[in-house]
């Protein structure tokens, strides 16, 4: 019965996503490849629309898709609903107990002006027969998807006690290749893949390693100015498009990582053949060197409290994860298992790292979670070329890059490994995801 629900609902999801999405750029669609099958049963009633024609957004569908993607809920199919209330007063709880819903989401979308809408929503506990929470919004049409994600965040928090991560954005890189050229685009989209925007486009100049500023206004990334120069780090204001190189550096710069307070950036600088980690003050450009080893030291990432950096170093002979204090002292090796470990970053609690791990013996490159307290690694994926994992801001989901056949796609796996989804772009190869912590 659960498998039927999942298949039925997934099909319904894809149809409604297709019906309501604007099509300015080639966009991501979400295909659920594995489901938990034992989540909390929730009924999300399509929001009542009082207006002419179709509603500008299907708020209920967006909320349902968010909750379903988390892997913690079973969304009951609307075709099974015996009634369609839009507020608590209209709810007959018996109708919902009959289909075994534990929680009920109802709401209304009303046009109140030229480009002005009212959204109201309530979350109800079916067995206790009471309202758990509700919200009201008055917004423009362009903000309706954000409102839906805020509703999802509220529902997620009420049901799990964990802050939601649905009202966030992702950055990623796409690459399209024809006979002679490779076209790169740095893109920003909502974390459900909608409303993709092109931030940067280059021809034959690779783009990699996007990194969000904590306030969500800037992206740092790595690219090449021209055919004569090596990699450099750029800061770009997402709203205005203004961009600059971080500093005049002798050699090349890459692997930018904003500090949690947004004032500093850790990065990798290569000069005279030596690759080391530096911390730069964003405002002044002042550089402090963190590693001095002749080995490759790269991919710095900050702990949530800003006191530590983890990074990849091959000073032992193969790449592994090391940790240093933010001033470069106290360097110690963290990962002892596996043939190689690289690309680590912290979860929001500071207790875990997500990273790329290769266990050796032909296993390939997979996504692993490393527990700092025990030194243990859990491998979450089973690809062979999985990379660039990034945690959601609530630590429940990991977005990463993988291959489907030859094609690069993004995938998400729940931090406990139970639920996995593919986010598929229609044209081109997708890679290098980064998940914002703010909208």
């Amino acid at each position: 019965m659960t498998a039927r629900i999942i298949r039925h609902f997934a099909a319904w999801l894809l149809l409604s996503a297709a019906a309501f999405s604007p099509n300015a750029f080639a966009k991501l669609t979400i295909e659920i490849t594995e489901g938990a099958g034992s989540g909390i049963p929730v009924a999300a009633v399509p929001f009542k629309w009082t207006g002419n024609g179709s509603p500008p957004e299907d708020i209920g569908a967006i909320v349902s898709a968010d909750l379903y993607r988390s892997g913690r809920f079973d969304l009951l199919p609307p075709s099974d609903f015996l009634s369609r209330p839009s507020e608590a007063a209209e709810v007959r709880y018996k109708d919902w107990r009959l289909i075994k819903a534990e929680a009920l989401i109802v709401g209304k979308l009303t046009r109140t002006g030229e480009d002005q809408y009212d959204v109201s929503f309530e979350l109800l506990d079916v067995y206790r027969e009471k309202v758990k929470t509700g919200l009201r919004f008055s917004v423009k049409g362009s903000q309706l998807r954000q409102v839906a994600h805020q509703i999802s965040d509220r529902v997620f928090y009420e049901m799990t006690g964990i802050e939601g991560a649905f009202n966030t954005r992702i950055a990623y890189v796409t690459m399209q290749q024809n006979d002679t050229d490779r076209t790169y685009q740095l893109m920003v989209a909502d974390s459900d893949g909608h409303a993709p925007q092109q931030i940067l486009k280059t021809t034959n100049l690779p783009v990699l390693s996007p990194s969000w500023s904590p306030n969500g206004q800037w992206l740092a990334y790595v690219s090449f100015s021209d055919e004569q120069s090596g990699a450099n780090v750029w800061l770009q204001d997402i709203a205005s498009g203004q961009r600059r190189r971080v500093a005049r550096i002798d050699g090349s710069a890459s692997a930018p990582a904003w500090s949690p307070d947004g004032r500093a950036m850790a990065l990798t600088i290569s000069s005279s053949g030596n690759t080391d980690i530096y911390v730069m003050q964003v405002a002044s450009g002042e550089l402090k060197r963190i590693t001095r080893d002749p080995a490759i030291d790269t991919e710095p990432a900050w702990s949530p409290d800003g006191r530590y950096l983890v990074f990849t170093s091959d000073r032992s002979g193969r790449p592994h994860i090391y940790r240093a204090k933010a001033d470069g002292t106290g360097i110690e090796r963290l990962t002892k298992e596996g043939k190689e470990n690289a690309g680590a970053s912290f979860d929001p609690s500071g207790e875990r790292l997500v990273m790329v791990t290769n266990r050796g013996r032909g296993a390939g490159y997979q996504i692993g979670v490393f527990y700092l307290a025990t030194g243990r690694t859990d491998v979450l994926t089973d690809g062979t070329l999985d990379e660039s994992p990034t945690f959601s801001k609530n630590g429940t989901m990991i977005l990463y890059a993988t291959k489907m056949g030859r094609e690069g796609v993004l995938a998400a796996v729940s931090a406990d490994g139970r639920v996995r989804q593919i986010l598929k772009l229609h044209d081109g190869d997708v890679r290098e995801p980064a998940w914002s912590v703010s909208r």
Partner: protein
Amino acid sequence: MMRRFGTIVMVLLLGVAISGCAASKKKGGSSVEVEDATIGSTTDSTASGLGADDTTAGEIIVVEGDSQGDLDDPLGQRVVYFDFDSANLTPEAQRVVEAHAQYLASNPGMAVVLEGHADERGTREYNLALGERRANSVSQIFQSLGVPADAIRTISYGEERPVSMGQDEGAWSLNRRVEILY
């Protein structure tokens, strides 16, 4: 200055002859565009500092001499290859590098670019550093044989510019390389 020899041949990479892969052509140009990403904004996007004009790629010239494709001539080989995760040169690669070093040392004023590359396994940033290490390894040999440091420029593209798109050791071994470009 580059057109000393009778035949100028745009040779791409040694790997082309082997793999015949269309994706390995050297590109004609490169450009950058920045978009104003605000929905409904009325301000123009301003990309500071960069033009969107094509810049020409460096010319690639094979020093052919008299015969066509004399593969025994190490100076005619412009690519050297590496083992996985390594920046060490094989004895054959060493021979090629030394030939180029001697050519450069006896032609002061010639400049060379060493482009380092890696196969796709491992993270992109690590591979950027690995490409750098490989290019630098060749550069060190050049310098030890009398080529002045300011005649040499090293650039790494990591795994971003593969010549072979396969996902097996045959393809990967062609991508782990340093290209010697004049």
